[in-house]
């Protein structure tokens, strides 16, 4: 859809926009808003998020709260951390995602599976125990805790890759 460039600013100001933690003001379309009906553990009242990407920082994706500008989770696709990552979604989470559970949920197709990254002084880790699962058909999401696969909530990232090969 072509629009004269001088009207772009005006057009943007009419669209919904929000302050973000890392990227200033973001303009978005309502149809891009992710709904987390149960929030996230510890952030139960945060139900609406945007998933933001920065061209220079792929495959990182940023889950920005719409209600709280200062709340943004850094995430990575679970498969980019562990190519054999197996998804486990509890029944309650299937309901939140609007899935019937007739076929086992798989990453790819309609489901996006992102691990939340923590940057601490001790190193960078990703939470593979409790990935964010997003149904791209209805844009509903849940943090699906998967206790029976033995994945860590602090899977090490970063340092290990930077170590020289021996």
């Amino acid at each position, binding site marked *: 859809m072509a629009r004269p460039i001088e009207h772009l600013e005006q057009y943007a100001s009419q669209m919904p926009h929000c302050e973000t933690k*890392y990227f200033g003001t973001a303009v978005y379309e309502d149809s891009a808003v992710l709904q987390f009906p149960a929030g996230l553990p*510890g952030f139960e009242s945060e139900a609406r998020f945007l998933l933001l990407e920065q061209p220079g920082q792929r495959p990182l994706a940023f889950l920005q709260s719409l209600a709280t500008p200062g709340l943004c989770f850094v995430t990575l696709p679970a498969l980019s951390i562990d190519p054999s990552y197996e998804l486990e979604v509890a029944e309650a989470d299937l309901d939140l995602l609007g899935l019937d559970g007739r076929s086992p949920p798989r990453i790819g197709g309609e489901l996006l599976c992102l691990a*939340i990254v923590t940057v601490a002084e001790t190193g960078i880790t990703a939470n593979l125990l409790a990935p964010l699962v997003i149904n791209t058909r209805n844009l509903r999401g849940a943090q699906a805790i998967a206790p029976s696969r033995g994945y860590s909530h602090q899977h090490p990232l970063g340092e290990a890759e930077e170590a020289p090969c021996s």
Partner: protein
Amino acid sequence: MLVVRRRAGQSVLIGDDIEIQITEIGPTKVTLGIKAPKTVAVMRAEVKLTREQNAAAAEAVPPDSLAKLASALRLR
């Protein structure tokens, strides 16, 4: 750690007002019923881990460590 053997239907008491009942025993899991006062938080251990990890992940991330992480991931 106290270890006790219990059968389905039996329970364990903790203090005066917390009761944990074994409601069902399956081949790979047991189902517990927990009675506790409202003031006592009852949650699965992995939910507590996830809450704490989410709180840590919500802390501000220095932009340069993000850039480093992104480039390290692309180089893999």
